[in-house]
């Protein structure tokens, strides 16, 4: 059987597809920021001198890392409303579920970055009379970011792809809109091909931005700013 390729019908769906793309970008953006923040808190907890805090952090990470993103999403969309009688909107539900999910990965990335910093750096700072907070801000944190930058960029890309799982609760992100267009037109091959191209361009843009960020944090030729 021979398929005749025809993309022309997509012109009529630029608006819904564009809105889907915007929703994907918004959802991914929120998840990146919230997931990173939660992951940072979990990583700080993982370094706590208190055993119970460390164990709580480890339990948090293992729990979220070992459950598929889809299951966490369904938990928040179907199970929690049944238990609490309170139904949140789709966007918020997806934000919460994916932020928790990715925070476990962010935690591990940041913890790895922290362990990669030579402990002698603390002593170098202490010997100058810097405070602990000062050593962390000016000496340790920049090196953690530098060591973790490639993995952080990877996780950001992963988040964009995970955000498509929100289509399963009918949140109108890009993949969900693609599916609707494809169903209306009975042209899945062209529709999904086009959506793959758009997603690739989006993620390539993200990769490009993260490269610039990585170069910035690598410190080379960086001037001390005030």
């Amino acid at each position, binding site marked *: 059987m021979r398929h005749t390729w025809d993309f022309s019908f997509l012109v009529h769906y630029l608006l819904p597809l564009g809105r889907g793309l915007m929703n994907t970008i918004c959802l991914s953006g929120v998840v990146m920021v919230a997931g990173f923040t939660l992951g940072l808190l979990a990583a700080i907890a993982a370094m706590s001198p208190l055993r119970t805090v460390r164990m709580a952090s480890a339990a948090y990470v293992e729990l979220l890392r070992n459950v598929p993103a889809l299951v966490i999403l369904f938990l928040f969309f179907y199970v929690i409303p049944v238990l609490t009688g309170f139904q949140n909107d789709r966007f918020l539900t997806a934000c919460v579920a994916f932020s928790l999910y990715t925070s476990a990965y962010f935690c591990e990335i940041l913890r790895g970055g922290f362990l990669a910093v*030579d402990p*002698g*750096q603390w*002593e*170098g*700072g*202490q*010997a*100058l*009379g*810097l*405070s*602990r907070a*000062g050593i962390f801000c*000016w*000496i340790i944190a*920049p*090196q953690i970011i*530098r060591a973790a930058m490639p993995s952080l960029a990877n996780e950001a890309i992963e988040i964009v792809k995970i955000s498509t799982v929100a289509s399963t609760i009918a949140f109108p992100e890009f993949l969900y809109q693609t599916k609707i267009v494809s169903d209306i037109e009975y042209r899945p091959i062209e529709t999904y091909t086009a959506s793959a191209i758009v997603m690739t361009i989006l993620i390539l843009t993200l990769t490009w931005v993260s490269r610039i960020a990585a170069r910035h944090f*690598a*410190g*080379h030729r960086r001037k*001390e700013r*005030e």
Partner: protein
Amino acid sequence: MSVIAVRNIHKRFGNQDVLKGIDLSVAKGETVVLLGSSGSGKSTILRTLNLLDLPDEGDVFLHGNKLGQPRPDGTRRYREGELRSLRRRVGMVFQHFNLFPHLTVEENIMIGLRRVLNYSITQAREKARHHLHHVGLAEKALAFPDTLSGGQRQRVAIARALAMDPDVMLFDEATSALDPERVSEVLRTMRQLSQEGTTMVVVTHELGFAYNVADRVVFLHGGRILEQGTPTEILLHPTHAPTREFLHAHTEFRLPSA
């Protein structure tokens, strides 16, 4: 009066007694070299002088003032602020340099000036350049530490400590991690400082440096000071067997002098 001193310092790591009652006092302008085999406690003494290691017993004095507050059990408690103000008066040079790899050479020197002594960027840069010039690395101001040789890195570390205008400089095996042909450039810098009247406490295995530069040599054995005196007394006429064995081990394969 002594710049820095310790009295009756005891330190345990686990169940091992590393220091068993150390008394040491360093006068202004003096260069004291600590010698001893590995495990004799010389690095621990150095790290006690700026309280990177807190002693289990005993006192630390800066300009005759006893540091810390007494606790009911007789030991002393050191507040974070007091530790910081001690450390900014005591410069330390580490075996592995401990430079900050994400900062340029001059930024490595500027960070303490900026964040501890509250210099402006311009003042800090000027002072950093001055001290880089002092250690002969003015042209490396904008380089990153990983582009420098070991000897150059250690000289940057020395400049970083010196820029804080410390009352005393501590050198913890500053040349032990260097390639042999890089050792002398660092030792020359250290000798220059000593000749300029910098108060210094030096842990080293370089007996030639000790002989030529030290005002006083202190030999440690088993966590105690076994003997101390002028370089001639300790290095040429030691009175204790462990000192003689140590010196013999360090000079066994020496070329005959011409």
